[in-house]
């Protein structure tokens, strides 16, 4: 018979297990509330957030995030900077390329917490208001895209490629743009865009 006064240990442990499982996949806010009510202190640990101070496109952001959030997901899901694209999410396609302290990186493999105190530039931070960056203009002029999905990553990579001094010949551009895959195959126009932006005389 079930004793109404003594809590049933097996039922409690079942709840703990199932809530911990749910915590991994479902309804975080509800689980955090449950944790706050003292149902399971372990769950609070699961959702522990850490402070992050990072400057994104010139604006200092004070954030609170889970350690497992990548820079890509932070940009897209929390800051709604959806110009940076998620292609493969495994560092193989370059669609997520952004600049961290001026260097191009794959934001999908960058844990957001590792950008503490750093400067992040995304495609949204490249233009000056309505005035496009010369590399953006060159991609339009030379038709450096078809579907456009890889384009923000291509442009961020291209700007870095020129600034690094790796855009001196078409062959060098091909090699140093190899981290950005274009499934439409706009490669030859991308090379033209990068070369012309570099030779156009404007500051890249």
């Amino acid at each position, binding site marked *: 018979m079930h004793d109404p006064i003594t809590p049933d240990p097996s039922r409690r442990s079942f709840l703990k297990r199932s809530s911990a499982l749910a915590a991994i996949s479902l309804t975080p806010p509800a689980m955090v509330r449950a944790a706050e009510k003292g149902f399971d202190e372990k769950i609070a640990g699961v959702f522990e957030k850490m402070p992050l101070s990072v400057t994104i496109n010139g604006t200092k952001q004070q954030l609170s995030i889970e350690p*497992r959030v990548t820079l890509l997901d932070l940009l897209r899901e929390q800051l709604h900077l959806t110009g940076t694209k998620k292609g493969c999410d*495994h560092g193989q396609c370059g669609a997520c390329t952004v600049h961290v302290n001026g260097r*191009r990186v794959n934001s999908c493999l960058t844990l957001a917490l590792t950008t503490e105190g750093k400067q992040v530039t995304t495609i949204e931070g490249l233009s000056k208001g309505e005035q496009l960056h010369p590399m953006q203009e060159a991609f339009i002029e030379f038709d450096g895209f078809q579907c456009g999905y890889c384009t923000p990553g291509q442009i961020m990579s291209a700007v870095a490629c020129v600034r690094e001094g790796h855009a001196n010949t078409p062959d060098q551009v091909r090699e140093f743009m190899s981290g950005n895959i274009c499934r439409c195959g706009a490669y030859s126009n991308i090379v033209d865009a990068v070369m012309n932006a570099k030779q156009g005389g404007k500051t890249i």
Partner: protein
Amino acid sequence: MNQFEYTRASTQQAAIAALVKDEHAMFLAGGTNLVDLMKRGVTSPSRLIDINELPLAAIEQTATGLRIGAMVRNSDAAEHALVNRHFPLLSMAFKAGASPQLRNMATVGGNMMQRTRCPYFYDTAMPCNKREPGSGCGAIGGYNRMHAIFGASEQCIAVHPSDMCVALTALDATVTIAGPKAERKIAFADFHRLPGSTPQKDNNLQHGELITAVHIPFNHLTNVHYLKIRDRASYAFALLSVAAALNIKSGTIREARLAMGGVAHKPWRLTEAEKALKGQPANETSFKKAAAIAMEGARSYGHNDFKLKLAPNAIAEALRLASV
């Protein structure tokens, strides 16, 4: 990705102490391989100790060579004037690896610690003795086009994917490792392991140890080349690669160094071929003879049968390109 705790280490001692405390903790450097492995559920550390702020990112000339800090980014090492001047072979290997974005992130220490790219290792639904000891090897009798032809075992035929490590093996580098008690040094060639019956262990680093630097001794190699053969022109792992370095004087080979990537569980030094080249004229006949000697003991597994022909051709070609 599973949950984990995150700690930033400000000193080497603090980083090591934090790792020692938790047997499931790991260091986070560039993250280009580790974060991917965590996303795929292959690796699930309880805690990441971020070592990106540790002061280990210098390249310094010593009395006997170059010391490259473990946190130097691959792109910075590739472009560094001292590396280019003294060890062009290493610059070539760095530039052959990954993409510009990944090279900006990846560190020298992390490059050494990267895991194999064997598809069975990455697919948690498949058997893999490296990921789950005792579960079997999916690649033996499976899809093994990228796999080893030297030094493999019944447990594992995976290869180490690095380019940098192949050059450092040929250059007789030394690894400096800090531990909870003391620092130790290990020859680069002894850092990585063959799979044997413990393929889950890629290298001889112990839990609680931190790679702090590699040291490359100056040499008298006059002719070098890093040849990488892959499925596309850039940004792909090696089907195989060859680091060739020679000292040639008046057309005669005084010294030879040869190492291969993409053929074994560790960078594969071709010691017997090196011996065979010493004192020989730097010509096609010598190169082909050395390549044939290097292939002794090679064995393939089906899809990678082509490597038995490709490897000697690549060795001879790398030597030829180095010699001109």
